[in-house]
């Protein structure tokens, strides 16, 4: 089992979600996060004073999948989230030891 984590532009969330649902993904978790990479921050003007904002708002999207689906799913996210501009985000895959469904106690792939 794998955990696919994607950091994407907030405005791309709807596109990515639709693509994932079409791909057959049954659930996902999102959170609002802040960070920076190559895009760095941006300059804001407040009352005529300029400030550099380091952290930019992004959306983190997490999906649990079976081992053999992870690569394809990553491809779907990358394709849907890409605008071609700096700041489009990143996607990574990490292995998962155990998954338990709280309601039934099922574990492993059936709990995904």
């Amino acid at each position: 089992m794998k955990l696919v984590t994607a950091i994407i532009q907030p405005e791309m969330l709807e596109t990515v979600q639709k693509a994932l649902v079409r791909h057959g993904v049954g659930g996902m978790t999102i959170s609002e996060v802040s960070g920076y990479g190559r895009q760095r921050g941006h300059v804001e003007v407040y009352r005529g004073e300029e400030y550099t904002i380091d952290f930019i708002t992004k959306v983190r999207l997490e999906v649990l999948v079976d081992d053999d689906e992870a690569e394809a799913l990553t491809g779907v996210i990358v394709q849907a989230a890409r605008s071609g501009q700096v700041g489009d985000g990143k996607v990574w895959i990490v292995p998962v030891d155990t998954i338990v469904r709280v309601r039934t106690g099922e574990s492993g792939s059936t709990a995904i």
Partner: protein
Amino acid sequence: MILEISAGDTAWVLTAAALVLLMTPGLAFFYGGMVRAKSVLNMIMMSFISMGTIGVLWVLFGYSMSFGDSLGFEVGATSDGGVTYFGLLGNPFQFAGLQGLMSPDSVAGTIPTLAFVAFQACFAIIAAALVSGAIADRASFGGWTLFTILWGVLVYFPVAGWVFSFDGMTAEHGGWIANWLGALDFAGGTAIHINAGISALALALVLGPRIGFGTKPMRPHNMTLVMLGAGLLWFGWFGFNAGSAVAANTAASVAWVNTMVATSAAMLAWLLVEKLRDGHPTSLGAASGVVAGLVAITPAAGSVSPIGAIFVGAIAGVACAYAVGLKYKLGYDDSLDVVGVHFVGGMAGTLLIGLFADPDSPAGVAGLFYGGGLDQLWRQAVGAFAVMIYAFVVSYLIALLIKKTIGWRISPADELSGIDLAEHSEAGYDLSPVYYTNKVQRTLVLTKDDLDEAAKTGASK
């Protein structure tokens, strides 16, 4: 002299008094939205506490210090057939506890004296609350509460008497600015805005800047709250200015229209400056422009024409939009721009009367642009600078006294984590569902049973 009480005038002044009281919660929202989320309640409470301390002081002896028979001395007159008495301070004992004012014979102009007491009480309350904007996020609530008391007694009550107490209205002798000098201040450009604005500067200097001032952006956390507050201020300000006619008459109507149009012009002017300078007309700029216009027209509402009011508002809007940037260059942390908006706006409005005063207005005085020469302008300047110097010096001394005794600043750790929790044990926005899953407790409180259980399972290790 027997004076008739006018039912119409009384009804209007009582209504106006309620409108002015509403300005203080309006100011609380205006200020509260401008600070960061961790300080919103403290900011709001600094305004509300003024309704407590000043409200009680006003009844005890504040009214008497402002509107009792003025203690002073005889000097030469400054104008033909003018007043020779230089009134400095209302007798604090004459109307202490508002004694004798409940009688039906007690009138001020054409209204019961207590209606005038009510109206002026709300002025004193908001004047003190205005100052708090300079010391956002960092002042101990006890220090601020003590400041409102000392500032009311030593600064506001005397100055209100200088400006608002006309000879023969509530006592034989009134204050020197209104009578001896003859400066025009319809609703408090000097007594309220220059006074509170320069006192705010004194506090900002004594307290020092917030941690991170000038290097970290401290943007408003809730602009919708700021706009709501600005709207309530504008609404209440019709009571403030039109009510200052102390009658339901032409002067009140002129003041109402001037208050509307000067504010409209100031908002446009501020937004234009922002658009040209920064690229975006901001909602904070609109709210600030509204307040700048209201401040500037406050002294001038009864002495300029509606066209003159447009000039007063527009000039103040531009002046204040540039003045709010000074704090970054000069390094004083006037957090919410009390100096930039209230001091600068009040100064602009007070001095512009000397230029734009229209002889056809209720005040009947001609300024420089209406052929009146410089006579009114110097009177305005003397009044404005006298209040500025007195208020700055006394406020600075009060602030120093508090700093040396009970102290002003909360600890750096409390300031960084947020003054709301440190000083009031509350958070402005309990939006996280996590807080409500058990009881509303931010810290997990373990009972003895929990601890026993934990000891048994070894979890406490």
